[in-house]
């Protein structure tokens, strides 16, 4: 490893440094305020590092492949982590619990996500995912009060470990078939292996898809999602929904593309089944859900179902011509999804905090009149989820539809349209609840000064709108990655 490669690892280094500094700080004097600032500074440094590393983008050992695309998502994920950090400050455990560990876990989890994003080798994928996951267990179970976080954590841990075992076994099978653990090497050798022992390769791939599918919470590996979303502290839920899922999807994409798995039609069939099931089941589940966090969980199931279309389309469009489109589609959709989800969870975190009953739909009655700012942010987020024009989600959906048309995936397109149509209902239910004039007693009186949470909500709202109404700069940017 030379110095230029070190430079390429700048965001990872910065995050590791933050972790170390946090530990040192804890050993000197425990102070969660300071820890918060250190974490924030660490994220900012890492953000800077992500920008800095662009000049040095290159593979670093066999484990990591730093490239523009990965760095973009690194940036996005760091930004999302910053949002999580800001949300975490006030919205849970207000009674002065020592949160230094929490910040440390957060940093470690982000570190895992960044590694995951840049992984080019099964070992780094594994480690990144586990690092992210193990830290998340702690974060989910962090609150001292209440049983729900604990239940969520134990479920997440067991199921996640089960998924990891599947993933590992799949890796082992692929390794047995190809003798290479890096994506590229595996992809190159897979063709030979496929001609000799196709089943081992396919079974391995299927188990890997199952393992990663769990983290993406696609059907039928989705069942943990609502419980964990509901039980975890809301900022952690937001983190899980954005950072964890985003990073895993990026890793899956890399693995899928570099390993050239899209060539195998049986995998495509399997993936299509998963995608269709996710789109429909996710939306059906959300249909009458009363708890917003659970509802968002179900909706995320559907969204990753939609997103899988892009991977499936790879099998038809391939890298010729349409590859550009697919790249843009993934980048845009994921970015839009992350931003939108963050906006939604920002509002939910602000309003519900740790109180589970406050995340029920009824608690959002008349929000428009009580807190127009937060309500608008949530509304825009929901509209973006629903794919209404002028929001980022619409352009994302636009991409998906274009991709599925270009690759003539009509069945998936039908599922996408059906799912979106069903989805309108439950997004609207929330909007309707927020617009109720009766439940509000229309008291705007106690208007607190606009806090950091509000600024955050506005910022995210504006970004979602900007991405939806003026997407060209971002498209151009994404096309360049």
């Amino acid at each position, binding site marked *: *490893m030379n110095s230029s490669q070190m430079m390429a690892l700048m965001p990872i280094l910065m995050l*590791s440094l933050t*972790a170390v500094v946090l530990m040192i700080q804890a050993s000197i004097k425990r102070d969660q305020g300071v820890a918060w600032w250190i974490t924030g500074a660490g994220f900012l440094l890492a953000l800077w590092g992500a920008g800095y590393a662009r000049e040095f983008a290159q593979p*670093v*050992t*066999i*484990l*990591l492949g730093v490239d523009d695309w990965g760095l973009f998502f690194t940036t996005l994920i760091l930004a999302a982590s910053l949002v999580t950090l800001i949300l975490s400050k006030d919205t849970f455990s207000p009674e002065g619990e020592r949160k230094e*560990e929490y910040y*440390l*876990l957060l940093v*470690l*989890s982000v*570190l*895992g996500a960044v*590694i995951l994003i840049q992984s080019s080798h099964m*070992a*780094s994928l594994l*480690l*990144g995912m*586990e*690092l992210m996951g*193990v*830290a998340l*267990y*702690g974060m989910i*179970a*962090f609150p*001292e009060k209440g049983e729900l976080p604990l239940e969520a954590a134990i479920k997440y841990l067991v199921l996640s470990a089960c998924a990891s075992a599947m993933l590992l076994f799949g890796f082992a*099978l692929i390794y*047995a078939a190809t003798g290479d653990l890096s994506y590229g090497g595996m992809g190159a050798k897979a063709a030979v292996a496929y001609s*000799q*022992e*196709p*089943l*081992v390769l*396919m*079974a391995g791939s299927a188990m890997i898809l199952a393992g990663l599918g769990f983290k993406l919470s696609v059907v039928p590996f989705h069942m943990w999602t609502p419980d964990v979303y509901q039980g975890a502290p809301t900022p952690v839920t937001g983190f899980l929904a954005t950072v964890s899922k985003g990073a895993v999807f990026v890793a899956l994409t890399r693995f899928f593309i570099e390993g050239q798995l899209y060539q195998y039609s049986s995998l495509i069939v399997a993936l299509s089944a998963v995608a269709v099931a996710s789109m429909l089941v996710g939306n059906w589940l959300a249909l009458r859900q009363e708890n917003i966090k659970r509802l968002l969980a179900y909706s995320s199931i559907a969204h990753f179902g939609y997103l899988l279309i892009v991977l499936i389309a790879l099998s038809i469009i391939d890298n010729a011509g349409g590859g550009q489109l697919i790249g843009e589609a993934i980048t845009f959709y994921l970015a839009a999804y992350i931003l939108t989800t963050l906006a939604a969870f920002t509002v939910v975190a602000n309003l519900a905090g740790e109180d589970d009953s406050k995340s029920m739909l009824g608690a959002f009655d008349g929000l428009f009149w009580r807190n127009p700012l937060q309500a608008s942010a949530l509304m825009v987020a929901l509209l973006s989820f629903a794919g209404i024009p002028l929001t980022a989600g619409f352009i994302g959906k636009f991409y998906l539809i274009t991709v599925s048309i270009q690759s003539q995936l009509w069945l998936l397109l039908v599922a996408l349209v059906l799912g979106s149509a069903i989805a309108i209902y439950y997004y609207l239910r929330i909007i309707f609840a927020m617009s109720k004039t009766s439940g509000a007693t229309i008291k705007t009186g106690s208007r607190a000064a606009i806090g950091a949470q509000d600024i955050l909500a506005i910022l995210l709202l504006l970004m979602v709108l900007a991405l939806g109404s003026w997407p060209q700069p971002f498209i151009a940017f994404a096309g360049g990655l």
Partner: protein
Amino acid sequence: MLEITLFYIAATIALAATVLAMTRANAIHALIYLIVSLLAVAVIFFLIGAPFAAALEIVIYAGAIMVLFVFVIMMLNLGEEGDARERGLLQPSIWAGPALLSFLLFAELLYMISTVEGPVSMQAVSAKEVGLALFGPYVLAVEIASMLLLAGLVGSYHLGRRYLEREE
């Protein structure tokens, strides 16, 4: 031939011990069987030319990780009534469905394995080679693994500390 015979013996022990571990009502008993299973796997490692892995399996897996289990079981002081309930849970109605699923899973894996070409020679990989690779191309993995262990440490510290504080 000796190796092959030994392998089959070890494999049989590992499988049998695992089955027993999975079906015990008493946690300590199960743990002992699990350790036996791990030791048997270690033997297999040794037989296929991975002595370093075999050693680690014994030292860390059977030695360290299982001891963690022992600690916890002892801390929780699981009593006899727990055993009785566990026994009651092992009804066919409970395990029939899962067993079917497991069997299906295994059948599919078996189907997959059956296509693998016949006996292929194994090559031994010495500890030195492993070490070189570990601190060569995989050096970053070591670093990340350390972070992973740190995360595990912090997490369990946080959770365990609360338990201990409450105990006082």
